[in-house]
Each structure stands twice: as C-alpha cells, then as structure tokens.
C-alpha cells in the first residue's frame, strides 16, 4: 500500500446512497475513521466493484466538502494558525449545509469536523432572539399562541409588567373567545345525544362536570359558567375578570410571601402552609379585582391600550427588555410557583398538562 511514486497513488472507491461512485486519494479517504475502519476490517474500497458504501447522511455535495477538509488536514506541516484560518473559511456555509455537514461528519466519525461545525452552529444561535433563530434555521413556530401568551409572573410592582400581563390577559381572552365559538359548535353537535335534563342543567349553568363528554379544558370552562346563565355578554365579562385575576394572582402572592419570608423560610417549604396561603390569596385577588372603581378600571384599560400601542415590536424582545429593566424575585417564588401549579392542577384535573404549563412558566420567568 506504500506510496512509492506519485503516479502510483492508491485510491479508495466510495459510493454515496444515490449510487454514484468516485475514487478518492487513499490518504484523504483514510482520514475519516469510518472509512479507515471499513478498509482495514473488510478490505472494501479497493476497486469500483467493491466501493465502500457511505452512510445515508453523506450526500455527494457534502462528501465533496468533507474530502476538501480531509485533504487539507491530512497534510502534515500546517501551522496552528494556518489550520485555524482554513477552518474558519471552511465553515462559512449556510445553515443547511452546515447542518448536513455536521450530520455527515458525525456518520463518518470525523470528530474534529463535528466539533468545528457544532461550534459554528452554536455561534449562529448565540445571542439571537427566538424569532431570529427560528427564521435562520426554519424551525416551525409550533408552540401555540396560548402557550406564548401565558402571563408572565408579576414579580414586582413594576407597572409595565402589570400592564403587559393585562394585555396578555386580553389577548388570551380573545383567543378563548375564538376557541369558545368553535367549542360551542362542537358542543351543539353533541347536544342531541344528551338527555333533556342534561341540556337544561347545562344551559342553566348547572354543574356539567359529571356528565359532560368534554375534555379537561372544557370542563374548566364549564366550571366558570356555573355562577351565571349562559348570557354571552356577562359571561365574557366574567371570564375577562377571571383572567385578569389570574394574572394578578402571582403578583399578589409574591408580595405576601415577601412579608413572610423574613419570619420563617423553612415553614414556607411545607406544602400545607403554602397551599393555605395560596387559597387565601386566591380569595383576596378576587376582592381586589371586584373592588375596582369603574373610573379607575377605565383608566387602567386606557393605560393597557396605550401600552399595547407602544408594544408594536416583537413580543419576546419586548419581554426581555422589560425583564432586563429589573424586577425582584425571591427564593420563595419557586415554592410559590410550584404550589400554584399544584393548585391549578387540582382544578384542571389534569396534572400532566399542569406540569407542562408549570415548566413553561419557569422558563419564561427565568430567561426571558
């Protein structure tokens, strides 16, 4: 196998999954551990008929790139600086090629190239907003509006956060509205299957939970409806208020926790105490919202409106900015959050869903 004269160079035959076969200088091909192993263990690659079949992830275009890389790197005597300059130029590729290259290099076990391209991909992600990353890599924007509009926990008395939350609540309400229209349609389809009594109790705002054939989500809706007859106007109003209450809930809760925190932290770690505290708070929240002076409410609405107008740029960016402006968080808020989750979990009757929500909220809280 030794190369005596240049014209006697040895070649290795490689075949990509599209069926095309090419010969590659032995020393270049052998730079890939996967090919090297094939040659040494199976003796393949010595002729066109015994070409080494490359993994599926290596398409012909990417193979060209990889061989360029190997051709340069297998030559001895490059200084570190030369290697670095070469690598830097080499990875100036679009994200598609970079991803394909990473994947192909991985399948050929070409570790240094995998490291190089992974770092390049990381650099592209670095410091970008989620929107930018999604755009750059064509990631599907498949988290629902609802998920994105989860209210941020209001950790301070920062009015901007409060306004943001109210705005979110409003958006969520709109969403719910749309959803509800759909649900009503669905519900109507089912109605004729139920008894008249069921229907009556449903319309009169009776507890539908036991008999409804609906998902957990809809059950929650029903629960809300029970105080009031299904009058669309008042129902909306109620829901709106409840939404806002939810968004304020955490703020209030945290405020209270701060008071307690100095007294005894250990106490707070116990489920029971925080749960009790929470239910009290829930109650308080309702009071706060209900007690709003109509004039004040109007003013707040105006404020929210105004705030919304100012927020015409990308959402998460704004959220970041606002969060960057600072707000206070206490250690206890984790416990706070977890008990909120547990609490809502009971209400929803769907702990999986709650765990998911909880998780997402934490993400939003921590890093946005």
């Amino acid at each position, binding site marked *: 196998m030794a190369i005596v004269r240049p014209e006697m160079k040895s070649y290795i035959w490689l075949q990509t999954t599209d069926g095309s076969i090419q010969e590659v200088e032995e020393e270049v091909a052998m730079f890939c551990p996967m090919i090297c192993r094939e040659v040494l263990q199976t003796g393949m690659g010595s002729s066109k008929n015994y070409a080494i079949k490359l993994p599926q992830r290596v398409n012909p275009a990417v193979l060209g790139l990889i061989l360029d890389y190997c051709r340069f790197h297998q030559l001895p005597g490059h200084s570190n600086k030369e290697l670095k300059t070469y690598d830097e130029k080499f990875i100036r590729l679009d994200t598609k090629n970079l991803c394909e290259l990473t994947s192909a290099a991985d399948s050929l076990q070409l570790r240094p190239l995998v490291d190089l391209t*992974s770092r390049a*991909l990381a650099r592209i992600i*670095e410091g970008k907003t989620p929107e930018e*990353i999604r755009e750059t890599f064509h990631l599907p924007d498949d988290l629902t509006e609802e998920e994105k509009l989860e209210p941020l926990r209001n950790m301070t008395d920062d009015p901007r956060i409060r306004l943001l939350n109210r705005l979110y609540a409003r958006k969520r309400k709109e969403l719910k509205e749309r959803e509800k229209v759909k649900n009503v349609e669905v519900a109507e389809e089912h109605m004729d299957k139920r008894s008249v009594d069921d229907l009556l109790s449903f319309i009169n705002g009776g507890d539908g939970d036991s008999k409804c054939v609906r998902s957990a989500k809809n059950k929650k809706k029903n629960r809300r409806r029970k105080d009031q007859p299904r009058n669309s106007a008042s129902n909306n109003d109620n829901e709106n208020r409840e939404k806002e209450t939810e968004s304020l809930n955490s703020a209030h809760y945290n405020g209270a926790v701060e008071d307690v925190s100095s007294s005894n932290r250990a106490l707070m770690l116990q489920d029971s105490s925080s749960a009790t505290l929470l239910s009290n708070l829930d109650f308080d929240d309702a009071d706060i919202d209900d007690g709003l002076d109509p004039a004040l409410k109007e003013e707040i609405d105006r404020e929210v409106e105004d705030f919304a107008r100012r927020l015409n740029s990308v959402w998460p960016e704004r959220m970041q900015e606002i969060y*960057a402006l*600072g707000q206070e968080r206490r250690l206890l808020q984790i416990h706070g959050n977890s008990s909120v989750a547990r609490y809502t979990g009971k209400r929803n009757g769907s702990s999986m869903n709650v765990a998911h929500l909880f998780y997402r909220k934490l993400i939003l809280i921590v890093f946005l």
Partner: protein
Amino acid sequence: MEMDIDYISNLPEHITDKILSCLSLRDAVRTSILSRKWRYKWISLPQLVFDNQSLLISSQDQTLIRNKLINIVDHVLLLHSGPIQKFKLSHRDLQGVNDIDRWILFLSRGSLKEFILEIWKGHRYKLPASLYSCQKLIHLEIFNCMIRPPTPFNGFKNLKSLDLQHITMEQDVFDNLISSCTLLERLTLMNFDGFSQLNIHAPYLLFFDIGGVFEDVNFNATNNLAIVSIGLYATAGYDQNPALGSTGNMIKFFAPLPRIQRLEVQSFFLKYLAAGKVPERLPTPCIELNYLSFRINFCDRAESLGALCILRSSPNLQELEILVRPDDQAVDGRDARISEEYFHNCPFNQLQLVKLVGISYAKQELNFVNFLLANSPVLEKMTIKPAAAIGGCELLKELLRFRRASVRAEIIYLDP
C-alpha cells in the same frame, strides 16, 4: 420548498447536545421556547455554568441581582434532568449565600465530577459538609471559601486536580486533605491562611503552583513532580530558621524532586531557598530541569549564591528567565560581592534562551550576564530588558564587551 426544511432539529441528539454545550447557559435554556422539538433539549445538559457571561443581569441593584441569580440557579437545577457532570458558579455579584449549601447538597447526590465555586464578593463562604461527600469529583476549584470538612474525612478518592485560592483552613485539615486525595496530579494554592507549613504528600503530583505566605515547604513522596512554581509573598523570618540545622533549605527542597522539569521561583522564595547553608551544587543534580525562572535581588549575596547553586545543578537547562527584584533593603556592597571563583567551571551546554528583566547597571548583575554569556556555548538568544532607561547606554557598552561562548548568540535589547 427545500429552503424551509428544519435541518438542525433533525440532527442526532448527541450533536444537538454538543451544540447546546457550546452555548452559554442562558442561550441554551432559551432554546426551549423555539419550538416543540427544542422544548426539552437543554434539560439534560451535563455542564451547568453560571457566570457573568452566561447570566446577563443588567441592574445596579445588588439585592435584586442577588435574588435573581439565586432564582435562576434554583430554577435551572429544578428543571434539569439527568446527570450533572460539571457545575460552575462564578458570578461577580454573588456572595457566599446560604442557598449555595442547598445547591451543593443537591449536586452531592449526583455524580458530580467537576465543581467550581468562586465567590467574588464578601466574606469567605464556608463550604457545606455535603461537598465532602462528592466522591466522584475529579476537579475541584474553590475561591474565597473556608474549608472545614467533617471528621473523619477520608479525602476525595478520585480527585486529580485541586485549585484553592483565597481560602482558609487549619493546618491539620490541609495536611490531611492533600495526603488523603491520593490520586492528586495538579495542585494550585494561592493566597491562603490558617496554615503555614506546606506539607505536600502526593505521590502522583505532577503540577504544583503555589503563591502565598508560608513558613516552610516539605515535599514528601513527590517523585513525579515535574512542574513547580512557588511564590513566597513575604520576606521576613527565613534567615534565622532554627529548624534548618546543617542542611539548609536548598538541599531539603530539591531532594524530594528528582523529576523536576520546570521551576519558577517567584517573589521572595529564593530568599527562603538560600536560608541556611547553601552548597556549591546540589548533591543530586536536577537532570530533567529544562526551564528555570527566578526572581532575584543581586544585592543579596545569599540569593546570588542560591541562584548559582541551582544553575550549577541544572546541566540540561535550555531556557532561563531572570527577573530582578530591586534592592529592598540596604545590603552592604561588600557583602554582596561574589568572588570570581564562584563563576568558574559551570558550562551550560544546553542553554539556548535567556531572558533578563529589570536589570540595572549594577556590577553584580553585569557579572552574572558575563558569566552566562561566557559559559553557554549553544546560546541562541539573550533578551535584556533593563529596569530604567537611565544608564542604558552604559549597560549596552558593557554588554558589547562581554565574550560569548556561542557564536550564534544574539543579544536583544528591549526598551524598558
């Protein structure tokens, strides 16, 4: 359309893991809101680094920053799933708060291999007992902490690298820690208090870097030690050490270091070495020593003799760096002079590079330069950087006159 295919999300998991581990923690965690496929990718990151780069908190309010930091670490640890191999906490705005205890306790239940804790503000943070149960640790790096393991503590059995800076610990704790971490290969120790005897019993130790105030260094079973850098930051009290007896520090220090390859003698440590009796050369030469750097006050005769002793005992030295410390106390000129015979019979047959920094026009210094040039037949380059521009011309004139054993030697004069 081909352009819209999401390639990155379909990469193998170990590659997306690799990409995530290249990102700062902040960016890594933020990937969870990109799309459903990215939702939970980050949570198995094996390395968690909380420092100023990975956590951007723009605020002036210290309490707020602190609370936010604590909150972030709490959340990340709560959400994380899978083994944590590396945990680094080094935020400039974080003091030694109690919350760290809780995190360490949590980490100690896993298989933590690398733990780095740097407290940049406030008092020394007392490391919790749970840390000492992290028996999988390979690398431990501590800054501004108090180390007091529960007794009995049997060491970190897998620890290979230990870096302690600005720490407080008792003498017996230190001795026990070093000798019980039996696999220790690297030890860095900077600015410590609570102990003053450096008793180093470490059979696998290769690298030893120390800087601080101490009274004595005792190597024991350090036969593999190859790279040593020692800086003694205080000068008092080494001349009259009663424990020295007849041997002196020089012999005691080098005897347990048969494999030494690189040695840096910093600050006042040469003074320590020169305390007691200084032999003309060591009983056993440092055969493998190829790099030597020392800081010296040429006006101190003992130091000059000490330096000469090391040089004479290093036949295979290739690179030498001499940093001149300005005279810190008035030493009688007559005392400092070393008679010519000290410079005889000392060929540096391997010495190629010499660097002299901070020299002046003093006679003792010039003698030394002359000595090196005259005894280094393969010298390639001598770089000289004087302490001050004044007298530079006179210095050059003298330098030009010196005979050089190496025909290839070039002298490079750098402006101060």
